[in-house]
């Protein structure tokens, strides 16, 4: 069970204000069409990814409730899934979540030094967010990039064969571009 963050308290007033963008609602309807009639629950994981991207990178109880309504499910069915998977944030996070792999192959190639270096540079520890809300530093398990270790993921982007210089550059670029990075971002596909 990967997600140990606990769920925040539900606010009925906030719930009334939530609505996803039209393009997001459209993609959700398309996703639901993939599955046989009555099996729209299958859309849960992809829809939660869209929901997270629509909601400043995290899933509040109000957003989860809204997802339940869209999919015609009980809220608890959505809560229990959101709390199982590690990519769903149940608490606010920085615009750029730097997820550094700590598993064996990366560890043999200096993953711990990467965490230490970023931590010093941003003045935060793993699990923390910078005071300007720009960066969250997270340690994660193997991301399937062991041959290009050490590595980190931020949104859709994989940053591999990390050196101090590369880390400096990517942090500078993220600061300059100053936008939220989501797993669902498209731009990385074609640059890669």
């Amino acid at each position, binding site marked *: 069970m990967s997600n140990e963050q606990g769920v925040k308290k539900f606010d009925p007033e906030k719930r009334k204000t939530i609505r996803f963008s039209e393009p997001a609602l459209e993609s959700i309807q398309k996703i639901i069409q993939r599955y046989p009639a009555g099996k729209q*629950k299958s859309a849960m*994981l992809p829809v939660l990814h869209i929901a997270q991207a629509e909601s400043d990178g995290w899933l509040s109880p109000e957003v989860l409730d809204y997802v339940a309504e869209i999919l015609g499910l009980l809220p608890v069915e959505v809560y229990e899934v959101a709390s199982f998977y590690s990519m769903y944030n149940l608490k606010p996070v920085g615009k750029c979540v730097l997820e550094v792999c700590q598993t064996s192959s990366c560890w043999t190639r200096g993953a711990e030094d990467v965490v230490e270096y970023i931590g010093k540079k941003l003045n935060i520890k793993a699990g923390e967010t910078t005071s300007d809300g720009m960066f969250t530093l997270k340690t994660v*398990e193997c991301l*399937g990039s062991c041959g290009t270790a050490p590595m980190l993921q931020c949104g859709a982007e994989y940053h591999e064969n990390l050196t101090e210089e590369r880390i400096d550059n990517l942090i500078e670029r993220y600061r300059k571009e100053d936008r939220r990075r989501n797993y669902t971002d498209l731009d990385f*596909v074609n640059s890669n």
Partner: protein
Amino acid sequence: MSRKLLLAKDHVPGIRSYDVYRANGGYASVEKALKTMSPEAVTEEVKKSGLRGRGGAGFPTGMKWSFLAKPEGVPRYLVCNADESEPGTFKDRYLMERIPHLLVEGMITSSFALGANTSFIYIRGEYFYVSRILEQAIAEAYANGWLGKNILGSGYDLDLYVQVGAGAYICGEETALLESLEGKRGNPRIKPPFPAVEGLYRCPTVVNNVETIAAVVPIVNDGGEAYAAIGIGRSTGTKLISASGNINKPGVYEIELGLPVEEFLFSDEYCGGIANGKRLKACVPGGSSVPILPEYLVCKTATGDDRLMTYESLSDGGFATGSMLGSGGFIVYDENQCVVRNTWNFSRFYRHESCGQCSPCREGTGWMETVLRRLEKGMGNLDDIDLLVGVAKKIEGNTICPLGDAAAWPVAAAIRHFRHEFEYHVLHAEKVKDPKHGHKEPIMPVKPAPVVA
């Protein structure tokens, strides 16, 4: 040079795109299967090929396909397992990212053989950008008539979708994957019933790894016998190996099964030897779940034969002196790496990834991690070592899914071969408080003295 079947066209510029892929012989297996073969004939070729599941368990693919139940009027599904979360494994990502059409082609040919009209590729959520590459390839395949209704005028219909996960190693276990695809928590199901009888939406389902599905393409193109002619014994064909750790050339290599481990590890065509001129200390040859081998059992078996990259040779000696081919995640450790710290690293992974359904796994992985961390930090005692062995034994074979075993085996194997290093962590507690102690004073494995009969 080794023959390549999956990565043969890897060097061709633009091979990710449909036009280049097609111009290089792509989709020939779909043409051949749909125009000239029956579904049973395709399955027959896969049987003849001797192909074994490339996801880790090595189950014969043709046999798995022939177990698929075919009740009248009930849909059947093919689900591709692209969850690839076993530490040390990154071959599926490489293949999907670089030659996405090979997987799409394999999915069409395999779905035809199984009589599935809807198929899914379940990919781990972290590979989101790869899912986009696959979706692009699928859209191209639809546009060119390889997917959809009445493909090539054969009367066969197929829809293919990509489903992203959301971060959970356990969803690589096939029944957890199906739960996840149904929009639930990834809790493995109790078997039987097996997916071949009750899988996705309780309909008959085949779950296969990315590389397994891709291998169906050359098998159908060239025939099962040609595939079976490559390799040794029951290890037929080629295998993608993900090589990582302290080697000169980490990366994904397609090898012919039967290649000597020594050649794979030291020749410049593959890993290129240990990085920075260091000595080899240990190797985990098949992903984090398989037993670690000390240096003296990597290139040779206990009986002195050359160790080969095959299912059989890598497991020669059983768990006493062997390991497993597993997913082909080949992780190499040099003399500076600490086996206790690495074992703790793996145990932290399994603790994090246990779904929590069965107590031996949920409690046992937590317990092992706690004790290993204590030992690694120089705060353990000698009894902790046997305590670990005991906990590992209690998990093994007592759980719903094999994650419990996968967590227990690496711990048991590390203690079996590196007990003196665990003892060192108790006896020289001051030294090991420095996490980089292995860089100052390497601890090499000690080969046991031969037993004289």
